[in-house]
């Protein structure tokens, strides 16, 4: 029987809906639809598949504002057994260093885990730094860019990691952390009845910094090792944006003409 399988999860705005105001140099995420970070959904699916095969409890842990609660309930509806939201105003402005610290503390508090799964990176930050960071705080091995996991025997897993030109198969002892490759599986839909239960009856655990034994100075802007000085707009290159319409024959003719003119 597996021990806990912990999945870290973030809520991200859809990248195509984020607006940058070039006058005030600020990012407006307020109009963007939020979603579970796509790679984290793949991590959750990977965790649920391990649970289906080998047992264990899937626990989702997230660090963010209270409005993320419905997204954690969605994870419960998909099949997670429990969910924890670390929510504290002092966490605002955390870079990857305090973020990985906070998540690692929460994971230690949950305890009794065999595997920690994360998305390979978030669709907004895109650093991929948090997964190895969490493993470093916990002092456990990690494997990044993983697309498959199987348990070969108690305490040992075999994972497939994408490398340049292909992949490698690694054997790793539990407990370990694996960051899961975006798009490597198809996340299941929430179960209808479980969804209703999650929304009406499931009690989300909400932890503050004090619950994790962390000081406000260790996290947020103060605890970060990098700071954003300013934002610059990098305009996309000017394109002709010439639309070509007509019958397939006409379009092919026009494209052939353009392509020939390029050589």
């Amino acid at each position, binding site marked *: 029987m597996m021990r806990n399988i912990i999945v870290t999860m973030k809520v991200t705005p859809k990248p195509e809906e984020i607006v940058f105001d070039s006058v005030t140099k600020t990012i407006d995420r307020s109009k963007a639809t939020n979603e579970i970070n796509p790679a984290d959904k793949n991590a959750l699916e990977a965790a649920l598949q391990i649970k289906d095969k080998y047992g264990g409890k899937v626990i989702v842990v997230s660090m963010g504002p209270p409005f993320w609660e419905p997204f954690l309930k969605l994870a419960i509806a998909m099949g997670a057994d429990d969910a924890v939201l670390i929510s504290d105003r002092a966490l605002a402005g955390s870079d990857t*260093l305090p973020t990985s610290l906070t998540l690692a503390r929460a994971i230690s508090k949950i305890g009794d885990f065999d595997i920690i799964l994360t998305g390979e990176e978030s669709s907004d930050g895109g*650093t991929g730094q948090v997964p190895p960071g969490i493993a470093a705080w916990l002092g456990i091995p990690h494997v990044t860019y993983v697309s498959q996991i199987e348990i070969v025997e108690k305490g040992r897993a075999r994972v497939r990691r994408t490398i340049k030109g292909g992949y*490698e198969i690694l054997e790793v002892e539990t407990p*370990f952390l694996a960051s899961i490759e975006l798009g490597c599986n198809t996340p299941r839909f929430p179960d209808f009845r479980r969804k209703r239960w999650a929304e009406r009856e499931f009690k989300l655990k909400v932890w503050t910094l004090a619950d994790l034994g962390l000081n406000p100075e260790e996290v947020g802007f103060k605890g970060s090792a990098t700071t954003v000085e300013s*934002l610059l707009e990098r305009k996309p290159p000017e394109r002709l944006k010439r639309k*070509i319409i007509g019958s397939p024959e006409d379009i092919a003719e*026009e494209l052939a003409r353009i392509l020939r003119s390029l050589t």
Partner: protein
Amino acid sequence: MALNMWVFIEQDEGVIEESSLGILSKAREVAEEGGGHVTGVLLGSNVAGEAPRLGRYGAHRVIVVDDPLLAYYHSEAYTRVMEGLIRERNPDILLASATRNGRDLLGRLAVVFNTGLQAHVIHFEVDGEGSLVGHVPGFGGNIVAVVKNVKGRPQMATVALGVFRAQELWGEAEVEVLRGRLDPSKFKVRRVEVVRRETIDISKSKRVVVAGMGTGGDLKLVGELAKILGADIGVTRPLADIGVAPRDLQIGSTGVSLKADLAVVLGASGAPHFVSGIRDVKTVIAINKDPEAPMLEYSDYYAVGDLFEIIPKLIEKLKG
């Protein structure tokens, strides 16, 4: 301020990752402005022969750590060796290429040293106080955050691929070779198999035909068009997700950035993570069913129609 800048030189089975050389050249430029010193750090097995030439790309000095267990990237072995070296020599800055392995290594080391790590920077410099300042692109590459390290040593950054060109402007480097003396029984991760296909580096291709979801994952027609155009094939992320093509051919923010003269983009809607990968393409031609897809904004020529009808006719015309 005499800064001691280190560049992690990535290699695999003795083959040096070219993006590492570009970082060396850029680091040397930065060092020359501020009076700093550049060290290339090369971990591998029997790789010392590669070390002197790293000087030509900008390294004043190269530290080689030689051990059979370092032949290819192994997270635990590499972290252990780098941690030991950094504790002993105290570099001010550590840079690595933002490859999977570079992110993996620095992501872990940054926590070990409780220090700042900037992600996939497209520009870096050192300010008057000796702080590392980098430009970190976000949101499809249209916004750049100017990020500064404010805590910890060494200050770290991974550098976006293909941003800095390797320049052969300098002389040979001074080389120091150390033995790794690693004990494999101490490691909890072990490689049992590796599978690699021949792939091409499409970041260097002059012409690329890109297949999007609209092709339905059918690369036959795409291949025929590529052949007649003398182009290589790339794919959008969903196609790599379903395994139609390897990740190495995936274009966009989590994949390759093209520098081609021509990209012909077939059946792609123009998602932000994709279009960041075609920013630097000279001419973009797209074929797509949807007359108003975001891809229009990123195209020079945007043909509206069924690519399965248009492409065969186009191939015929190009043959004729």
